[in-house]
């Protein structure tokens, strides 16, 4: 008993000592287990690379920054909320990079971030619903909302002179949100959506779905699905039945396996996925390679940017209190100011300390709009001779 008392006293004094030294903790809550566990290690590595860069520069005026990881599971809101609660109450993080998937991110925002007043910057939640969620100005994301992709799709269709489309989507939050935003944007631009119907993934036969789509008609079929799931099945069945021969492919459908699986029938189709030709993406890729992970992995650049923005905003506010620096996040991310690319965080901290302005561009060409979400950069692609070729960036 005595020993335990002694030990806990020692731990308590240690904790007190740690709190006294200027130490800033940033939580990184991502789905290290679950459906996107293959990409989260590269995302976390991105955020930690930014933190390391800031520490190494020695220019951060508020102390040393330590990352603390937690698991959001991507799908289990209860587990994610508990993990975020632990980060805030027991690890006492000053801000959170995360969450990853839209559902758990919304839950953590409402149950943990808002009650405790902690800033959350998500690198990968894309649901349009998060744009309108109550966030007390605490929630930001370096990934674009799918509403933005809907606008991009409408622009691409409009520029190609297409007047009517049929839309099919995979029956989940991502598919439904994206399909609805495409429909809203396209109709606002004067186009006609003949049908907006769901399809289930993992079925062998999509002829019935294609029958309904074909009956509704349209010049192009927009397939808001997954390239190795129902989306592929829908395209194959459409080509087989001669229902559609041109397809618009949103981000979940763009991948080299699709033209390889479908064959020449896909030539002439087009699509878009997040991507940028900003020099930041390339230099971030090199930095990641040097650090020993893959920086081109999905949402890894966005994670680096999320962590970097938090620290730059803290520096600009001169405080690690979320309620204070939340107001500086938009300013450091957007013009005016000197453009900051990956690897230049030390320079950025210096400019801020000297009272200057910065415009953080980072690895994913960040530009925060609306309630604090990335405007998003998309790579428009064409399928030519069985290969994906870049048309342009927008």
């Amino acid at each position, binding site marked *: 008993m005595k020993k335990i008392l002694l030990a806990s006293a020692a731990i308590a004094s240690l904790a007190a000592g740690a709190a006294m030294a200027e130490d800033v903790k940033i939580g990184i809550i991502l789905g290290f287990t679950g459906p996107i566990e293959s990409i989260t290690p590269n995302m976390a590595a991105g955020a930690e690379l930014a933190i390391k860069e800031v520490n190494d520069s020695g220019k951060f005026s508020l102390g040393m920054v330590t990352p603390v990881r937690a698991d959001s599971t991507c799908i289990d809101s209860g587990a994610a909320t508990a993990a975020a609660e632990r980060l805030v109450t027991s690890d006492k993080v000053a801000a959170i990079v995360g969450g990853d998937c839209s559902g758990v991110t919304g839950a953590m925002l409402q149950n943990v971030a808002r009650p405790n007043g902690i800033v959350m910057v998500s690198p990968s939640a894309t649901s349009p619903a998060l744009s309108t969620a109550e966030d007390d100005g605490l929630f930001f994301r370096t990934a674009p909302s799918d509403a933005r992709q809907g606008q991009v799709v409408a622009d691409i269709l409009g520029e190609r002179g297409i007047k009517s489309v049929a839309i099919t989507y995979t*029956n989940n939050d991502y598919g439904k949100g994206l399909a609805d935003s495409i429909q809203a944007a396209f109709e606002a631009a004067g186009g006609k959506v003949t*049908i907006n*119907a*769901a*399809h*289930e993934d*993992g*079925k*062998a*036969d999509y*002829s*019935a*779905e*294609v*029958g*309904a789509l*074909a*009956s*509704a*008609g349209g010049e192009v079929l927009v397939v808001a699905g997954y390239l*190795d799931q129902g989306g592929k*099945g829908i395209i194959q069945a459409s080509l*087989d*039945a*001669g*229902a559609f021969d041109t397809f618009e492919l949103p981000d979940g459908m763009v991948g080299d396996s699709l033209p390889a*699986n479908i064959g020449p029938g896909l030539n002439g189709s087009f699509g878009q996925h997040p991507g940028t030709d900003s020099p930041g993406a390339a230099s971030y890729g090199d930095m990641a390679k040097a650090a020993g992970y893959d920086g081109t992995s999905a949402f890894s650049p966005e994670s680096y940017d999320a962590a970097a923005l938090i620290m730059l905003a803290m520096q600009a506010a001169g405080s690690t209190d979320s309620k204070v620096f939340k107001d500086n996040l938009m300013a450091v991310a957007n013009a005016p100011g000197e453009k900051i690319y990956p690897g230049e965080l030390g320079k950025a901290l210096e400019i801020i300390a000297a009272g200057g302005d910065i415009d953080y561009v980072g690895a994913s060409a960040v530009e925060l709009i609306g309630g604090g979400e990335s405007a998003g950069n998309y790579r428009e692609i064409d399928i030519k001779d069985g290969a994906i070729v870049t048309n342009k960036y927008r």
Partner: protein
Amino acid sequence: MDILNAIVVLANYIFVPAMTYGSQLALGALGITLIYGILRFSNFAHGDTMAFGAMAVILATWWMQSLGVSIHPLPTALLALPFGIAVTALLLLATDRVVYRFYRRVKAVPIIVVMASIGVMFVLNGVVRFIIGPNDQNFADGARFIFTAGDFKRATGLDEGLALRSSQVITVLAAVALVAALFWFLNRTRTGKSMRAFSDNEDLALLSGINPERVVTVTWLIVAILVTVAGTLYGLDKSFKPFTYFQLLLPMFAAAIVGGLGNPLGAIAGGFVIAFSEVSVTYAFKKVLGYLMPENLAPDTLVQLLSTEYKFAVSFALLVLVLLFRPTGIFRGQSL
């Protein structure tokens, strides 16, 4: 012209797909009905046996493709069928030896055997995923189309196209050939007759000297042929994924019960009834009506009775209706 267009649309989206799907269901339901009639239990492992048979064919097909064997324009899988049937027959006879024979010996009530078959289903489920994995597998080769929608439009000058895939024609032809052979076997051969006798009255058949184990063995062999062919045709025509075969269980049982359990003719009719209702209830008739009706009456809506997500609900609804109002099925099979 408009009437022709309407007919072509119907043929392209309802008649051809439903014929193909119906043939695949009919072959599956025949197996279920045979097992029910002769072995007297509902075999829940049927869908996964189908997946196993198709898997065996796929493995043999890949092996042949790697050797360069081909019967272009027909798919190589047809050549691999006998191999798949042999492997599936071995599997079925082995499960009979290990599982079902015990329950026959102790004269277990059917529901116990059904439970045992669910166990077999789970084991097969795992075996198939263990060997070939849970993902889509592509094994179709040979000519994909007899004629495409584009060819048809150019040849006829109509606005609407009709596509006919070779897998669809092969499916229907194979189903017809298999069913004809099965009926000849059941009605004309000595073994077939003894099987029917065993199905009609087990005790009387035993008294007249029919060897029950032989009847059981022959039944499993026939079932092996039916499931392997049905599974392979389904995989060729659509795609092979173990889970989709498990999902086929409901429409196949619905087909067997709607037609009349234990009645082979009923299983075939049931297969087509289920297939045609699944496809036509979820079809959007907007285009067809657009061609048939005068312009000012053409519908704005899709004219779709049920959204396609509810496809499986259709077979369930039919199943419930038949059980409520005609429990013996269309062709007067055994009642449940």
